[in-house]
């Protein structure tokens, strides 16, 4: 597709790592978000407090600081635990694992608030009606709440994922060979920083446009059967 003085393949390899990183962070982040929302809506105050602290810290601290903390802190933590267990020698923490951890924790914090709002948007009468029909709380969760929560949460989740997709570039700071880092390598060889950073920018733009299209498709599908919304 594009050659870029022979560095096109390198950039595409980096793009694949960027996509893997973003998707892994999305999947894990959705789990954190659902857990966080369940805790925030729980009747037990220690759970609510814990979830509140989680969202407050992860949304108030720059993602770059979170990434650096998880990576450098993680190295010390893993080696400290291993040392206490009698392991000698150094254990390396993968930048990919640190990146996924940091980005999914961040995505999870935003998703917690989105899911919480979406659960509250389902009228309480529906839950009461479902219970009156004899559904168990688990069945109510899967049949009544989740399909609607998904519909209410999709726009917010899509926007947050677009933010996380762009923040994958920050993981290059701890040395992960994703698109940004590969671009820096190409710049080092060719001495053409403008050309290559612009090329990287266009790859991110393409990824953004693809995610937006998928988001629109999912929203149309989730809204099917809703009066005045389907296919809008």
């Amino acid at each position, binding site marked *: 597709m594009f050659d870029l003085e022979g560095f096109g393949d390198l950039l595409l390899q980096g793009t694949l790592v960027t996509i893997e990183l973003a998707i892994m962070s999305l999947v894990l982040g959705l789990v954190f978000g659902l857990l966080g929302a369940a805790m925030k809506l729980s009747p037990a105050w220690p759970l609510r407090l814990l979830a509140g602290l989680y969202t*407050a*810290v992860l949304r*108030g*601290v*720059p*993602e*770059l*600081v*979170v990434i*650096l*903390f998880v990576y*450098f*802190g993680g*190295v*010390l*933590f893993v080696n400290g635990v291993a040392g206490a267990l009698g392991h000698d020698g150094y254990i390396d923490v993968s930048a990919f694992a640190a990146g996924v951890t940091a980005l999914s924790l961040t995505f999870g914090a935003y998703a917690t608030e989105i899911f919480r709002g979406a659960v509250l948007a389902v009228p309480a009468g529906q839950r009461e009606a479902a219970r009156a029909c004899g559904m168990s709380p688990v069945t109510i969760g899967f049949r009544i709440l989740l399909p609607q929560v998904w519909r209410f949460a999709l726009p917010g989740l899509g926007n947050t994922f677009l933010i996380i997709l*762009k*923040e*994958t*570039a*920050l993981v*290059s*700071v701890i040395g992960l060979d994703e698109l*940004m880092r590969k671009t*820096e390598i190409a*710049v080092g060889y060719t*001495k*053409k*920083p*403008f*050309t290559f*950073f*612009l090329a*990287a*920018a266009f790859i*991110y*733009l393409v990824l*953004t*446009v693809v995610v937006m299209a998928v988001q629109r498709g999912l929203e149309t599908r989730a809204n099917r059967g809703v009066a005045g919304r389907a296919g809008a």
Partner: protein
Amino acid sequence: MNVELMIDSLPALLSGLVVTLKLVAAALVVGFVIALPTALARISRHAVLRGLALGYVFFFRGTPLLVQIFLIYYGFAQFEALRESPFWTILREPYWCALIAFSLNTGAYSAEVFRGGIQSVPHGQVEAARAIGMSAATVFRRIVWPQALRQALPAYGNEMILLVKASSLASTVTLMDITGVARTLAAQTYMPIEMFTAAAAIYLALTYAMSWGIILLERKLTPKETRL
């Protein structure tokens, strides 16, 4: 955790806070100056203006801020003519490059926020003001903008907080903002957990203070009779 070390590092981190605050304040001012005309261009009747504004907003909202900073700081050096021009005294300085990138970035996001605010003002009000004989500029200044700003304030406040967090990327071009100081100290002391925790605490305090400030401002700008 070594709390003593965290306390010892506070003066250095606070000097980083000053750099962060300067960058954020300057980027907010320049970003605002960019955002307002861009928002107006986005809803202009002229297709060329609309297209230009859309292209600018699309590029800066669709690419990572890190790419934008590197494009300005490292990218421009590729052009011989630029390196020999008087602009080079500005473009070779990481501070100015970070400031340009932050301003263009927040300008694009704020433009969309302001556009939403402007479009939320009912068109009947504009027509009524025109009917009394106000010029287009007066209508905007007296009728549209005050209401648009109030409407856009919550979203604009969020954008201000996002900019504080985004300013941590200044450390990638060697600037000594909060994150830059924390990274340097972490490398010197081999105490990354302590240093990044201290930096995170400063950012948290800053973002919380800002979100409270915005809530107070929102209350102040809400007419008394409509207050809950």
